[in-house]
Each structure stands twice: as structure tokens, then as C-alpha cells.
């Protein structure tokens, strides 16, 4: 995540044991251990602590204190070992990959700084948060009690009871949550941007324990792949089911995926299938398959939906682009399965690239091909106007004459906005109809239409390129 480059030279160091130095080379790392090979061919000690170790990052050796050396059993090389810094636990993976010496407990130096932040929180917001945390704790304890009482029950019986509890008390809890959210919205309505940021931070610290009970909220907050809206979150949104080990956790998971914004994501998936079918009917060249390009395709569920009969495989040819290898892999896997099920392989191409850098290529048509239908959902909400404008312009170049392009963006009126920002730590760039359409101002000959789906939180810019 740093912009500094991973150095190519091997990382070396020495272990100091009984006053003697034993050089090693680092071959890899886990979070808290370095994987090393002692260069003189043997281990200085095994399963023992040594008085010290040093690593040489650039010039001077840096002492990393007492360590434990654990020989690698089971591998042929007897000089291989793990070195675990025990005096001062370190982020060994960062030491290896990024040449940074960061203590595992470095964050504790920031406690005073973090505590100081609460001074800037409005008293009524503190009161609201404290009351909310208390009330959530009450519910949690009650649902936990039911979980505990079902611990020794037969699984089928327990499942029936849980269904019933979710339907009654669970629903009541979700309504209570809605009410509290409405209060939050009113309270923060007049906040400046800086106030939203500070209060959101304070809020999430307070409800962190609740966030962690929810598979969805935990993921939006932790963002294991470095960005919000990864393919796992999309799957959770599309599944829209109770997930989790505890009743309370299941409800905390279900609540955020029943929101208007989440429904809008499910709605746009259906809408896309309709739009693609319409594009197929109007296709400029009936002698060939309709060429579709999905930009920031993610797991591409709508593409799976598109193929229901064997004939469909010949109707469409898809190009899917995303920055995330994992999401693309997932899309590929499932689309392949669809082809297998229909006994007709789907024509699909998978491109890993970021829209921020794909524009770099001089001849993008050669690289990405021309398409009859181009769409992008869940991407433009992350692009500021200068970037969005240039991406749109380049995508328009990839559109065949007579082709159609549909871009999604959340509308400023998204009713789930405060919920997303405060609970999910999920910030989007919202647009009005005017700013959205203005992005396409310079597209030669384009005609536009703007509409929203049923929940009115998601907006679409529908662009048509004139025929020949």
C-alpha cells in the first residue's frame, strides 16, 4: 500500500547467540515471523531464544532485539528456520516486503491522540451514541440468551425456533434499528464535511463490537482487499440472507443489506439483463453476436443471469474488465460453470486493468475492441469529475456506431447515505442528474437519457451513439 517500490536486493541479517554472529538471508515472512536460511548451512540454535538479531535494510543494520529461532522441520534444508521477534513483536511481512520496521504494537503510541479526539464531539451526539450502544447491548443479550438456550437442541429444531424468533423479535429489532438510524440522520443533517468525518470515526469506535458481529458490516469496515464493494460484499448483497453464527449477528448482517441502496444494487442487476436483451433486439449487425463490455465487472452476476438457454451462448460475446484479480477469477469461474451447464461455452474475455490507467494505451480500440453495449455499475461513484469525464470519453470511443452505453451512479438523494457513511465507513461520490449528464458533454453526437430504479437511489446515464 505504499508507493515505494519493493526492493529487489535480498534482505539479510544476523542472529547473535552467545556472542557469536550467524548470518542469514530472509526468504519470506508471515505477519510475525521471518522465514530465513542461515548462510553457513546450519542452525545456530533450535527452538530457543537468542539474545539478539539484526537486519540490514539499506545501509546500517537495525537491531530487532531478542528472537526465538525455530528450525523448519520437514524440509530438506537443515539451515532453514523461522525467526520470531519476541522482545518487540514486529510486522515481519512489512519488514520483508516493504523494508519497514514497524512494531506490531505501534498503534498503542497513538492512544492519547485518539482519546483527544472525543473532545470535538458534540454532546448530543455523544448522548445519542451512548444510548444506542446501551440499547443494542440489551437486544444482543436477549438474542444471545436464546442462542445459549438452543445450544444443546437438535439442529433442525433449533433452526425452526430461530426462524420464528427472527420473524417476530428479529423484525422488531430491525425496526428499532431503523428508528435509531432515522434519529442519526436528523442529528447529522447539518454537519460540515469535517464534522461528519470526526463524528463518524467516533461513532464507529463506539459500535465496533456490534459491527464485528455482522459479516457485512465487518467487511465494509475492514476492507480486506483495500477497497469497498469487493466481490464478497457484492455476493452478500445479492444473497440477501441471514448470515452468521448468532441471532444477533445474523440480524446485524441482514439489516444493512435490506436498505434502499442494497435493493438498488439488486435492482440494477435485473435492469441490466433487460437492457442487454433490448440491445440485442436492436443490434446494429444481426449477423453476429452482440458484443458487451462490462467495466468494473466485479463478480458479474448479471452476466450469469443472461445465459439461460444453450442458444444464448451464441447471442452474446462478453468482455469483462476489473482491477481485482480475485473478482475476475470469480466471474470467470461462474461464467464457465454456466457454459458447462448449458453445454455451450460462453464467449468471454477477462481483462485485468484499472480504468485510471487503461486510458494510457494509445490504441485502446486495438486493446479492448469495439462493443455494441458498454456498461459500468458501481464504479463512477468512486471517480471524481475529471477522471469520470475522461473515462466516459474513452469508453465512448469503444462503442460501435448505433451502440448504447449505460453508467450507474448513486444519486445524492440515496436514503442510505448516512447509514453507509457512519456504520459501513463507505463513502461514495454522489451525483445529481445535472452533474452526471455534464460528464458526457463532449461526447460527439451522443444522446442521453437519465433515469433511476425503483428505490430512486441509483441513477443511470443512458448514452446512445448515432449510427454511422
Amino acid at each position: 500500500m505504499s508507493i515505494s517500490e519493493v526492493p529487489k536486493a535480498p534482505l539479510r541479517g544476523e542472529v547473535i547467540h552467545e556472542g557469536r554472529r550467524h548470518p542469514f538471508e530472509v526468504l519470506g515472512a508471515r505477519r510475525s515471523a521471518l522465514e530465513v536460511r542461515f548462510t553457513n548451512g546450519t542452525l545456530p540454535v533450535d527452538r530457543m531464544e537468542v539474545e539478539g538479531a539484526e537486519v540490514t535494510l539499506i545501509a546500517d543494520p537495525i537491531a530487532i532485539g531478542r528472537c526465538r529461532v525455530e528450525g523448519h522441520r520437514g524440509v530438506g534444508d537443515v539451515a532453514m528456520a523461522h525467526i520470531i521477534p519476541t522482545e518487540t513483536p514486529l510486522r515481519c511481512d512489512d519488514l520483508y516486503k516493504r523494508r519497514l520496521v514497524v512494531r506490531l504494537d505501534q498503534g498503542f503510541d497513538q492512544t492519547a491522540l485518539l482519546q483527544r479526539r472525543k473532545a470535538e464531539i458534540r454532546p448530543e451526539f455523544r448522548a445519542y451514541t451512548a444510548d444506542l450502544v446501551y440499547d443494542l447491548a440489551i437486544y444482543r443479550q436477549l438474542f444471545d440468551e436464546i442462542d445459549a438456550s438452543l445450544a444443546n437442541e437438535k439442529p433442525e429444531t433449533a433452526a425452526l425456533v430461530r426462524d420464528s424468533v427472527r420473524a417476530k423479535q428479529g423484525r422488531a429489532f430491525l425496526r428499532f434499528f431503523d428508528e435509531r438510524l432515522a434519529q442519526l440522520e436528523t442529528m447529522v443533517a447539518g454537519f460540515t464535511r469535517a464534522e461528519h468525518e470526526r463524528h463518524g470515526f467516533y461513532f464507529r469506535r463506539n459500535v465496533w463490537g456490534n459491527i464485528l458481529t455482522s459479516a457485512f458490516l465487518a467487511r465494509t469496515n475492514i476492507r480486506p482487499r483495500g477497497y469497498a464493494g469487493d466481490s464478497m460484499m457484492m455476493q452478500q448483497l445479492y444473497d440477501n440472507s441471514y448470515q452468521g453464527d448468532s441471532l444477533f449477528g445474523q440480524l446485524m448482517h441482514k439489516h444493512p443489506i435490506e436498505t434502499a441502496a442494497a435493493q438498488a444494487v439488486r435492482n440494477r442487476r435485473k435492469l441490466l439483463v433487460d437492457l442487454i436483451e433490448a440491445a440485442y433486439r436492436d443490434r446494429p449487425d444481426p449477423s453476429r453476436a452482440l458484443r458487451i463490455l462490462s467495466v468494473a465487472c466485479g463478480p458479474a452476476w448479471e452476466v450469469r443471469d443472461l445465459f439461460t438457454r444453450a442458444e444464448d451462448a451464441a447471442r452474446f460475446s462478453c468482455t469483462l474488465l476489473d482491477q481485482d484479480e480475485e473478482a475476475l477469477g470469480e466471474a470467470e469461474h461462474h461464467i464457465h460453470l454456466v457454459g458447462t451447464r448449458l453445454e455451450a461455452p460462453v464467449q468471454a474475455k477477462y481483462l485485468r486493468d484499472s480504468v485510471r490507467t487503461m486510458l494510457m494505451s494509445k490504441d485502446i480500440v486495438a486493446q479492448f475492441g469495439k462493443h455494441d453495449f458498454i456498461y459500468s455499475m458501481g464504479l463512477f461513484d468512486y471517480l471524481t469529475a475529471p477522471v469520470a469525464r475522461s473515462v466516459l470519453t474513452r469508453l465512448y470511443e469503444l462503442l460501435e456506431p448505433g451502440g448504447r452505453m449505460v453508467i450507474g451512479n448513486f444519486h445524492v438523494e440515496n436514503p442510505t447515505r448516512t447509514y453507509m457513511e457512519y456504520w459501513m465507513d463507505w463513502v461514495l461520490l454522489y451525483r445529481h442528474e445535472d452533474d452526471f449528464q455534464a460528464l458526457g458533454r463532449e461526447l460527439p453526437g451522443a444522446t442521453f437519457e437519465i433515469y433511476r430504479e425503483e428505490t430512486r437511489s441509483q441513477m443511470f446515464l443512458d448514452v446512445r451513439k448515432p449510427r454511422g
Partner: protein
Amino acid sequence: MSETFQHGELKLEVKDTTVTLTGRSTARDPGNFIGPILTNLYKQASAAGKAMILDFRKLDYMNSSTITPVIRLLHEAKKSGGKVTITYDGKSRWQDLSFSALTIFATEDKRIEIRGE
């Protein structure tokens, strides 16, 4: 007795064990100019058993690389046991945001102190 060092729009005035920074620190590598002055003074102050004071209150602007020599000094002080006090203008938004973050180096015994005034 005081001594003044100037580099572009940045001025460092050293008096006893206090350095006062004024103007704007915008050099390409501010550490080249600031680093040695801080290191020297830190050594002198430590030798005399005194606290070194870094006064940023009158600084108008600094680029983000200016923080590097300051962090380096705090590191050194933390390691070698010397005394350093940093003062900044707590009412200036940018100073507050930049310098309050340095409290992560502060020690409980106030050997290293970061003070917004």
C-alpha cells in the same frame, strides 16, 4: 547570543537551546538544511543536560517532507534519553493537525513533550 540560519523563505533562529522556525519551509529536501542544525543543537543540549525546544508557532507553512527531520530528531531523543519540547500554535488549523500527531512520541515523564499553545 543567537544565531540565524536562512534557506529560501525559511528562517531558523537558534538561541541557547531553542530553535524558532519562521516563514515557509518549501525546499525540495528540507532535511538537508534543517537536519544538521537540529542534530547539533540536540547534542549540545543533551551534553548540557538541558531540554531542546523547537518552536513552530510562527511558521507559516511547511511541506510534508519537513516533518521527516523532526521525526528523526524525536526518534533519536526517544532512543538516547534526551529532552525535547515542541511547541506549536494550537489555534492554527494546519499546525494543530500536523503537530498534534507528534504526541505519539511524547513520554509520560514529559522528557519529550508536544505542546499546542
